Structures are given as structure tokens and as C-alpha cells.
């Protein structure tokens, strides 16, 4: 039995089908800020909320894949990005401890991240719409390279995997953008959470210009400090997930992606 995600549609069955999509898309923009606000109450509640979110993510990964694309997960990614950005720019910057250069670097990294993921989605949508790989002939016959993507319900050539958090397939043409986006997202989060945590907590000089947070005991004294701290903790969790994604890409997909090139190289060397 395939278990489906619990949506508003399940709770209120009299709602029309088209409403389900809208609610799923808006839900993360309400749920995530609400969870972060609850987490500002105390350290114990922060830990509980972060564990709940972590368990939610694990649950999503252990479920069998849905047939329909759900906008919930992509909306969760967007709401995470928007929430973390707003908290950083309004609360962390409001404490006047971040310099203009540091914020400029952060905005630049964020812009690169957004650009790469935008290109990734644009190429994926283009591929699915036109059904052809750029610069390559599309084979209408299922070859060993082509797969049927259950979530997109479309046959795609050289499908790598489907990312539910970006709501698109990652194929050969947009794989580089996916990887670049993940690396930029990692750098952005690393830099942003470092700035945030060293602002909210007592920092120390680790090496040269690099500061690290040392003592966060005062983080829950005021609301804005605790919101900044909780958002940075959420950002660190996100950082951890991105690191796992990058490691997984390195270990599994890079050899697969570069296998044809390696084979060519080996053939050339053998001749």
C-alpha cells in the first residue's frame, strides 16, 4: 500500500481538487516561520523543533515516491531560503556587527546560488517541454540510457535523479548547474551562518580574520537574538544536508556522469 502525503485535501475532503495544489504551495511559508518562532522560547524547544524537522525530512525520504509532483517540497525550499534571508538581513544586520563588505559577499554568493538553481530548473523545464537534449539527437526508442521518471511521468533521456526539493529532474544538461548551485548554496550557508552565529554569540578569533562562535548562553535573552540564533541553527542543519548531497554526488554520480569520458580515454590509451 502506497502511503500518500497528508495534505489539506485528506483532512477536508469537500475541498475542490485544484485547491490542494495551492494549499501545499503556501503551507511551508506558514509552517516554517511558525516552527522557528516556537523554537525561540528556549534551548530545549529549539532542539525538539530541529529534531522534528529532521525526522520529517527522513520520513519524506523513506516514503515511496508519489505519482504526482507536489509543490510542498519546493515551497519548503523557497520558504527556507526566504526566511533565512529575511532574518539575516533584518535581524542579524540590525545588530550592526556585520560589515558592508561581508554582506556584499553574502549577497553575491546568494545571487550565484539563485542563478544556478534557476538555470537548472529552466533547463529541466525546457527538456521536459521539448523532449530533446540541446545539441544532441533525441532517440524516440528507449535505449539503455533512457529512463521513465515516475514522479514527472515523462520519459527522459539519461535521467540522473528527480529532486523533490527543487521539483524537477536533474539531467545531463543541467547537472553542472545543479552541482554549482549546491556548492554555492553550501558556501552561502557556511558564510551566512558564521556571520549570524558570531554576531549573536560571543566569538573568538580562530585564525586571522576567521571568527567562530564560542559562547551562546545569552542567545535566548532577547527575542531578536534568539530568532537569529534559531535561524542559524536551522541553516547549519541545512548545511549538513547539502554536505551529504554533495558527498553523495561525489561518490555515486560523478563517476557515472564521467564514465563515458573515462571509457573514451581508456580506449584511446589502449589503442
Amino acid at each position, binding site marked *: 500500500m502506497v502511503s500518500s502525503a497528508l495534505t489539506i485535501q485528506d483532512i477536508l475532503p469537500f475541498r475542490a481538487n485544484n485547491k490542494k495544489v495551492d494549499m501545499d504551495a503556501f503551507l511551508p511559508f506558514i509552517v516554517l516561520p511558525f516552527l522557528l518562532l516556537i523554537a525561540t522560547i528556549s534551548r530545549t524547544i529549539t532542539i525538539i523543533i530541529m529534531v522534528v524537522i529532521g525526522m520529517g525530512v527522513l520520513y519524506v525520504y523513506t516514503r515511496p515516491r508519489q505519482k504526482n509532483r507536489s509543490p510542498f517540497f519546493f515551497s519548503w525550499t523557497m520558504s527556507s531560503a526566504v526566511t533565512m534571508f529575511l532574518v539575516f538581513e533584518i535581524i542579524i544586520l540590525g545588530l550592526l*556587527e556585520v560589515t*558592508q563588505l561581508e554582506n*556584499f559577499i553574502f549577497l553575491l554568493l546568494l*545571487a550565484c546560488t539563485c542563478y544556478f538553481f534557476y538555470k537548472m530548473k*529552466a533547463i529541466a523545464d525546457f527538456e521536459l517541454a521539448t523532449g530533446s537534449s540541446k545539441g544532441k539527437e533525441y532517440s524516440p526508442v528507449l535505449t539503455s540510457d533512457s529512463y521513465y521518471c515516475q514522479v514527472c511521468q515523462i520519459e527522459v533521456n539519461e535521467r540522473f535523479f528527480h529532486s523533490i526539493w527543487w521539483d524537477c529532474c536533474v539531467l545531463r544538461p543541467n547537472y553542472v548547474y545543479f552541482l554549482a548551485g549546491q556548492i554555492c548554496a553550501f558556501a552561502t550557508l557556511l558564510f551566512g551562518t558564521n556571520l549570524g552565529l558570531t554576531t549573536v554569540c560571543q*566569538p573568538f*578569533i580562530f585564525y586571522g580574520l576567521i571568527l567562530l562562535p564560542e*559562547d551562546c548562553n545569552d542567545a535566548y535573552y532577547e527575542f531578536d537574538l534568539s530568532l537569529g540564533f534559531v535561524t542559524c541553527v536551522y541553516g547549519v542543519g541545512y548545511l549538513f544536508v547539502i554536505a551529504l548531497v554533495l558527498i553523495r554526488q561525489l561518490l555515486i554520480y560523478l563517476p557515472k556522469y564521467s564514465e563515458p569520458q573515462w571509457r573514451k580515454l581508456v580506449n584511446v590509451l589502449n589503442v
Partner: protein
Amino acid sequence: MRCSYRKKIIYGVITILIFIIFSHPGLYGRSSYEFIEKHNILKYLHEEVNVNLTSNAFTNCDYHDIINDETTLSPNLIEGDLVEGHGIRDGGEYIPQDCRPKFSTAIIVPYRAEQLRGFLVYMHTFFRRQRIHYRIFIIEQVDSRPFNRAKLLNIGAAAAINAGFPCIVLHDVDLLPLRPSNLYACTKQPRHMSSSINKFRFVLPYLTLFGGVISIRTSQYKMVNGMSNEYFGWGAEDDDLYSRLRACNFKICRFGPEISQYHMFSHKLQRKGKLRSDLLSFARKRMAADGLSSLHYLEVATVLHPLFTHIMVDL
């Protein structure tokens, strides 16, 4: 195609707008600011000693090597002890014996229920490297009203003026200077000494900040009638002093960020004062009537401890 082109334009415009909005200079702290260069420091120092100072030394103290000292002290010194034979007199006063000091400074510390022993051990260890004549005044508020840092500083300054000190340093008890080259002497203009605090990421939050540790000549302090006595609770009394100095056309100065490094101990943050923004908006108008000239308090006791002069007051 036109749709996607329009989308790209919109995204581009939003990105540029975000960059513009979040580039406003008022949103940032400053890692660099105008300061007195190291090679000019001695020229900008105001040399004056306490009228009551007697010294048997033959030569004047030289401060070149102190200004060029690159070492950093560790805050862990607070857990140590003072050296044997430290030569500190009762009341926390010290006069270097090997040379005649050029600077006499009274360090005024407003205090209530914080960690004091570690601060005193650290500061006396720190001052041994500076060869200045100094005395530490701890002004303790013993009543239960909100903490009034400015009034305590006024009381301490009045005591320092009575003792004949020409230079006072208004010092928070949770700040430790990390560099011995940060000389505790007055410059010709009032100086904001704590411009690079670890708690603030070693960044100056705003250019007109005048809190933490400042040095000011007692003549200048009297000219602005000291600080306002009305700020009960945390906040804005340092901005009030800054506006008083500006009203009398005093400019403030700083040393470089590396010299001005301080370590702030995390401590229980105080309740913010309720009326501080109202008081601050009328700071200049209240200058003449509110300050050193209108200082009324009950002095509970003055005790000359071995390491400090303890003045307990009820505001």
C-alpha cells in the same frame, strides 16, 4: 519566449533592488574607521600628572616601546594572582618606581554585583606593563533602583578630581584591554578606547559610539558638566555624553582596531531603560542643569582596599 524574457527582466530588477536596499551604509558596522596611526600616538597624548604625585626616580618614563608592543594578553589572566611585591598602595594606586611617569590616570569603574576580583587582577597586571601612575576607583550602587552607570561615573569622576587626577578613564567592569600598547592615558581630544570588542565581532557598530571604555581629561569632563544623572537602566547615557561633547565642539578620536581590542565577558544583560530615547533627544538642552553640578547622592562608605578605592553609594 516573451514571457520568459519578461520573467528574466523582473528577476534581474528584483536582484538589483535587493542589492541597492541592503547596501545602505547605515545598516553596517565598520571594520575600519579614522584613527590615530601608531607612529603619531605619542604626539597626540596629553602629558600631565597628578598635582600630588611625588616620585624619587631620576629619569622620565619612555613610552615608545610600550606603544610599539605587539603582544596580546590572554583573558585567562583573571584566574591568576598578582605578582609578589607588586607595590600597589592601598586604594589601588600605583606609581612606577624605576622612572618618573608622564601620565596620571584615574580609572573609574561603575559596579554592581559583577565579577570584580578577576577584573582587578587583570587590570593591575596589565598596567604594570604601561608605566603610568594610576588609581582604580570602584563606584558601587548599593540601592535596588535600576543601574545608573552615568551617575556612578560622575561620582567617581568627582572623587578623581578631588584626588587631583588630570585624566580619567570611564571603564566598564566587563571589558578587558587585550593590548598593552593601548596606553591608558588621555589624548588631546576625548578618546573612545574600546572600538574593537570581541562581542561585536571586533567591528565598530557605529561611528558615534562612545560607550565601553573612554578616556577624557577632567577639564573637558567638567566643561561638558560630566554625564547626565537621569539614565536609570541600560542604554543611551554614552550617546548623551557624545552629544554633550559635540555641543562643545569636541571631536572624539580612536586608536587603530588592533590596538583597541577588548574582551567582553558575557554577563546577564540588563533591562533597557524606559525613557532613554526621550532623554537623549533633549540631551543638549539638559546639559547645564543635569550633570556634575547637580550630583546628589548618599555616600554609604569609602574604603581603601588593597587593590582599589571602593565608594559605595545610594542613588
